[in-house]
């Protein structure tokens, strides 16, 4: 069993009004050091793949097909093998 932590982030060129608004809120809370905020998505996917290589291959395909939109988003993921007890 594997647990994938998937991070979907906006491409650097894409305007992010959510991030800008959050930055504004942080500034008004007194976090004057904040320079920028980009909002993205975080997903946890657990899967019963036979090997790490297979899990990675499936994850990449999931990201490409559905989890991220390649027009506006990038993705990366971390894979952890879950040891059953």
């Amino acid at each position, binding site marked *: 069993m594997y647990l994938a932590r998937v991070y979907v982030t906006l491409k650097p060129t*894409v305007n992010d*009004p*959510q991030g800008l608004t959050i930055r504004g809120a942080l500034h008004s809370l007194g976090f004057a050091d904040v320079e920028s905020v980009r909002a993205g998505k975080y997903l946890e996917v657990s899967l019963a793949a036979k090997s790490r290589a297979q899990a990675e291959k499936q994850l990449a395909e999931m990201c490409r097909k*559905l*989890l991220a*939109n390649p*027009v*506006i988003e990038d993705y990366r993921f971390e894979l952890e093998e879950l040891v059953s007890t």
Partner: protein
Amino acid sequence: MPLRFAVVVFPGTWSDHDTQYALSGVLGQEADLVWHRERDLSRYDVVVLPGGFSYGDYLRAGAIGRFSPVMEAVAAHAEVGKPLIGICNGFQLLCEAHLLPGALMRNDSLQYRCVWVHMRVENAETPFTLACQPGQVLRIPISHGEGRYVADEETLAELESSGRVAFRYCSAEGEVTAEANPNGSMNDIAGIINDGGNVLGLMPHPERACEPLMGSEDGLALWLSLLEWAKVRA
């Protein structure tokens, strides 16, 4: 002979009956509501993907609906050159399905906007705008939270140079201004067509402006264009 329209219904679609009413109630055409599990649309002349929130807009608007069984039939319909319109959520679905370029993102206001807007006909030679004058201003409502059209510079340049921007947000007088753009769309884009010219995606709702009682009849122009297009082709 009336045209046969398929109005595709996904779980969460909400403008299906409005669209059916405009097409059959107002215009006397045949308009079937077609469930998203349908795999054959070959008997229809025109396919409409209406507005709403397919699959709750989870993940991204249109991201999950675009894998519905019907979408292969929708692509096949477009492939043979028949007219396909995506309105609002339908536009989002067409972009997610790569039948149209670009993507629709959260409005720059971060607000859901349900207002009347004006859009200018930028290309009056598409099957969807034949009955319009170039530069004609249509008053049509929008109702969306994710309608900000985004594409890379190359795609935008391509759309602009090949007349594929069908509609642009504008003032009542037809001027393209920042104030007239309700969602922050790049180049004030309200609707685009594919390179074949038979697939249109737009955020405004022409089906909701088809009778004086609705506040505007300007939406009829799109449907009347399709009827004219069909007549010319027959």
